[in-house]
């Protein structure tokens, strides 16, 4: 191992990067733009109102009692706009289709004290978003029915061990986003960069010099590590920091940064992402063996990146995945990075926490495996 040769490789990668404004933009501007967009969407989507109508098709006394109690329970509730002008089901259905109503509460014609079935009708084009207003309706329904029976309902309040129970979606998503960006961009950039070495004849040329495979992989890791480090620093600063800009003339007040709360030490979060990034450098070098063109590197995205996004705990906890997929999720580096980042940022874990030690250890192990694989493929190409 000759430090001068490693330094030469590092210097070269930095010089190549400096002359490549597109890659610099991909590395530094794109993540900020996407995170800003995500923060914007998540923080404003909660303020929409659900437009609701109540249709009573029954003729019995029970129907009209429940309908009127329901009406008074729902009317004026935050997040709910009650449309009292609708009285028949066909108008209500048409209004759902026209998207002037979000949900219709129907008391069917056979509604009675014995048969207390109530139907909630939505459009059904976007079940996830429509489901958001259903808990409020159910709460009002229970209240309306219980009220009619004269019962007293307990009040329920949520609490959680870590974080605050009213943590926004953004607070839990932010750690994930930080890890994912670092991984994705570092992988793409090293993959393409090393592929160019292979097809441009420079790898052949490198192999004709006394530089060793280990020196090349190390040089690449440090070179791309420098940029990954800068990127993560910028992204973390943007996610954790918040700079409020007051209104100035025609420009309304706005904020730069998301101001996500973190309990743990940002430096540990940083360490996690760095180890993850080292694995991504070697993965990029390794996979470039199996590509002949830049397009073929892009073709690895659905194979390598998307499954990690789906299975790595981004959307669903590992424990909720089908039994067959759980072992798959447990070998993906993203899984451990996301868990570690959540441990640090939400639960305030530090380096003495066993769970975090496990996450870091597994990430380092995966990185080591790919460093060896990367070095091995450099040889295969040449010998």
């Amino acid at each position, binding site marked *: 191992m000759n430090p001068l040769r490693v330094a030469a490789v590092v210097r070269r990668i930095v010089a190549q990067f400096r*002359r490549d404004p597109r890659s610099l933009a991909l590395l530094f501007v794109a993540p900020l733009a996407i995170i800003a967009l995500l923060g914007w969407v998540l923080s404003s989507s909660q303020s929409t109102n659900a437009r609701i109508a109540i249709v009573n098709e029954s003729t019995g006394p029970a129907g009209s009692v429940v309908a009127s109690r329901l009406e008074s329970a729902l009317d004026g509730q935050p997040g709910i706009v009650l449309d009292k002008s609708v009285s028949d089901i066909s108008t209500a259905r048409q209004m759902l289709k026209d998207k002037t109503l979000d949900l219709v509460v129907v008391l069917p014609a056979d509604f009675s004290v014995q048969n207390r079935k109530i139907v909630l009708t939505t459009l059904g084009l976007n079940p996830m978003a429509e489901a958001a207003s259903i808990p409020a309706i159910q709460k009002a329904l229970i209240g309306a029915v219980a009220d009619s029976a004269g019962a007293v309902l307990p009040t329920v309040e949520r609490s959680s061990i870590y974080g605050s129970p009213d943590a926004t979606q953004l607070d839990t998503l932010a750690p994930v986003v930080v890890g994912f960006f670092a991984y994705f961009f570092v992988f793409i950039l090293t993959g393409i960069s090393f592929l160019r070495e292979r097809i441009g004849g420079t790898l052949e040329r490198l192999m004709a010099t006394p530089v060793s495979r280990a020196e090349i992989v190390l040089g690449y890791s440090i070179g791309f590590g420098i940029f990954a480090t800068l990127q993560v620093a910028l992204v973390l600063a943007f996610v954790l920091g918040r700079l409020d800009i007051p209104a100035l003339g025609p420009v309304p007040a706005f904020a730069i940064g998301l101001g996500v709360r973190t309990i743990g030490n940002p430096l540990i979060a940083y360490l996690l992402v760095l180890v993850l990034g080292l694995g991504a450098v070697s993965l990029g070098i390794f996979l470039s063996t199996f590509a002949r063109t830049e397009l073929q590197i892009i073709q690895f995205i659905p194979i390598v990146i998307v499954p990690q996004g789906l299975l790595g705990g981004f959307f669903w906890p590992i424990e909720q995945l089908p039994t067959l997929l759980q072992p798959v999720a447990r070998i993906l580096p993203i899984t451990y990075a996301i868990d570690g980042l959540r441990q640090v940022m939400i639960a305030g874990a530090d380096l003495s926490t066993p769970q975090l030690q496990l996450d870091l250890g597994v990430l380092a192990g995966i990185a080591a495996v790919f460093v060896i694989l990367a070095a091995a493929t450099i040889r295969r190409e040449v010998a």
Partner: protein
Amino acid sequence: MTASPPMASSLAAPTAPAPAVEAVGLRKDFGPLHAVDGIDMSLPPGRIYGLLGPNGSGKTTLIRLLAGLASATSGKARVLGVDMPSRANLARIGYMTQSDGIYPELSVWENLTFFAALYGQTDKADLRRSLEFVELDTRTDTPAQNLSGGMRRRLSMACALAHHPSVIFLDEPTVGVDPALRVQFWDHFHRLAADGATLLVSSHVMDEADRCDKLLFIRDGHVLAQGTPAELRKRAGTDNLETAFLRFATESETASPVTETQEPAR
């Protein structure tokens, strides 16, 4: 990789100079194709050797074997007395590949200093001289992608020679180089040889052959004939080296009929 003591060769035979480049029964198979099919050669130092043959005759594979970039199926490749592949020995070898093998985003100076640094050569004044020789000293800051094809070729050569190697492999160095510069290239090759370097230059252009001290005609992975240009002309009974090549080729076919179909020029 095993690093043999680099100075082993100087101890060998003090009377006759030890060969700088040697091949003993060297073979390289790619599946059914024998790219290099049992080549023996022994090249004393301080000369220019021309490796001549049509496309696909095995020139590049032979050079890659000698430069330690590929491992032989059987036989031995030896450079300066050290068995190849040997990473330590690469510091004494210069290899100019057929493709330019330079970084298009990097400037002329960055490309040169990068490759030189890998060989441990960091003498700036000396590197500047090697750029002067290839007439690129006025373009140090130009990105390689903005150079003409001939200039890229010159940069590629400067990168291969910056560390003053004593054995130099040049794979088709003059392709795309204009005639005036080609003459300068060859003058430089002769100066390097006069300083004691050994050069193996591959080409498929016969008019360059006369500039070499010794020629190796190669086809289908075999050496058809070797000798000085004058010797080869005399043996073939013709003044034209191209005709000589074809005569040797026909001769070898009648002498040892081809038993298996060789892949034609790739």
